[in-house]
């Protein structure tokens, strides 16, 4: 009988040990590998950015990002890529821009195609855009499908809500 008792207690103890080892609730783990990193396979149309060479505008294409249709305008102030530099391209826009389609949030009556409102992110400084820069902005914006015309906010009258409409057509002399 002693042996049976001992065996029974041993079994119970083992069970308790197993339960204690596995524990209740969620246990922390070490760092676990879960396969290879994900592949970047997002799809986005390429964007067209108007850069400057020899005072003339030159369209170049860059890869886009999904869900960022106006990325091209936002890309204007970014330093040119090495490859663009080797062919003598540069940009006249030096400060970051923020863009907003005018159909959004303004109670607008615009129909597509609608204009794009562009202003400098840092409003404390005067944009000081050159004509070439404005041409870059206007043409790059109009290269985006569904956009026609640009409203430059804070270009001449400093941030009173109004804006200066410009169009790429005004800068035909800068286009090749």
């Amino acid at each position, binding site marked *: 009988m002693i042996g*049976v008792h001992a065996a*029974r207690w041993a*079994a*119970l103890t083992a*069970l308790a040990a*197993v*339960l204690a080892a*596995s524990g*209740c*609730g*969620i*246990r*922390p*783990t*070490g*760092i*676990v*590998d*879960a*396969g*290879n*990193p*994900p*592949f*970047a*396979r*997002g*799809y*986005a149309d390429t*964007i067209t950015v108007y850069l400057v060479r020899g005072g003339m505008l030159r369209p170049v294409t*860059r*890869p*886009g*990002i*999904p*869900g*960022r249709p106006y*990325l091209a305008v*936002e*890309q204007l102030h*970014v*330093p040119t*890529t*090495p*490859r663009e530099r080797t062919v003598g391209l540069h940009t006249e826009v030096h400060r970051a821009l923020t863009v907003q389609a005018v159909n959004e949030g303004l109670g607008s009556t615009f129909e597509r195609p609608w204009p794009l409102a562009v202003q400098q992110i840092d409003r404390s400084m005067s944009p000081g855009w050159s004509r070439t820069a404005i041409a870059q902005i206007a043409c790059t914006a109009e290269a985006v499908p569904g956009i026609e015309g640009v409203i430059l906010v804070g270009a001449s009258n400093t941030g009173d809500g109004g804006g200066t409409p410009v169009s790429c057509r005004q800068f035909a002399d800068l286009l090749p």
Partner: protein
Amino acid sequence: MIGLRLRLTAAFTAVALLAALLASGISYVLLRRVMLHRAQYTVLTDVRKTLTRQVPDELPPDVTPLIGAQLEDALEAVPGRKAAAVPMRLDGGVNLPPRNKLDVPVSTEFAMRAMRKLVFQRVIRDGTPYLLVGTRLDGYVTTSEEPQRTVPPMVYVSASLSRESADLRLLTNALVVADALALGSAIVLALLATRGVLRPVRRLGVAARALGDGDLETRVEVRGRGELADLARTFNDTADALERTVTELRVMEAASRRFVADVSHELRTPLTSMIAATDVLAEQAATGADGDGDGGAARLVADETRRLGLLVEHLIEISRFDAGAAVLVLDDVNVLDAVAATLAARGWRERVTVDGPADLFVRLDPRRFDVVLANLAGNALKHGRPPVSLRFARADRAGVEGVEVVVTDRGPGLPDDLIAVVFDRFVKAEAARSRSDGSGLGLSIARENAVLHGGTLEAANDPDGGAMFTLWLPAGPEEDHA
């Protein structure tokens, strides 16, 4: 010694408890694994899908903060998740996300591992479990010069597992309740089952006790074909064998007793004649003129013949006891009168001091009472020394009314080795048994008579010297067979 039922119940319950605990423990572990796997799989798949879908293989320059913010928004769409995108360093080092951006801090080791693979880790922080996921992106195109500008960021996500934790707590509670219920029903079932198992055992026990008490016809019912049925069969076989043997022995014993009785009866008739004849011969020899010697021899023959007659009478009496043929003929008797009559009939009135109440009436068999008293007084007179006293008084034993008669003498008393066997047949105090004139059956017969009344007869030595025989008889014994 713990009862069999308790032990069986305990074992049954222990087995049930063990099984329940094992089952619930295993199911708990399995369920937890499945639950956590699913939760982890969901988070990992979300991260993987979001990154794959949101990040193109080629990036425009300087959009890391932009795409990082976009990824964070997408990954934090699920409640309980927080995400941080940090620029990937190309010099082999790692950027850690800012503290408080995630629910759990990211260690450098984790970040290093995340540089190579999609990795995750479960972390408990402030009692809440979190899943921390970290990865970089693969399969992108960058430029050889200024690659830093077009590399997608690394992403860390912390996902709270508090819902899974709550589910597990719920499961634990349910299992505890279930186990408690299982334990309770196990105890009830065990009690029921052991009652079923132990009923035949108890029946066997009752039967064995009955057999031990002499009921040789006791048998148990053999039911089923288990070990207990085997045991019952064995019990019955044993009881059969025992009954057979005991019956044979009884038959043999009865035969030998009948033989003694028959022999005694057969001897009585010739002995009666012989006693009469030898008495006449002794008489003639004593009065004849032929000589003195012949008279002595004839007297000896007459005495011995009379003794032989007494022995035969005693043998007949005791064989009646053995055969169970002795019966009580009860009467209301005044003890003092009965004692006086006994002593007077044998001429011992002057030699025995009687002491006792005159108005003590007891219901007993006067003939047998006379036999016992005569035997005790005769022994005291014959083997002890005067003064012989006979005291009687009312005495209750074990709540039963009765009368106690004590006969003492002033002799040497009984030898110690004789006290235990003094009531056995043919036991005599004198070494030379053949010369004693008693039959050696007197005390046995006295004892049988006492027992027949439902009383006792005991022998002891008086502390003051001399033998002491104590007779106790119940005042009104059951009239059995009368």
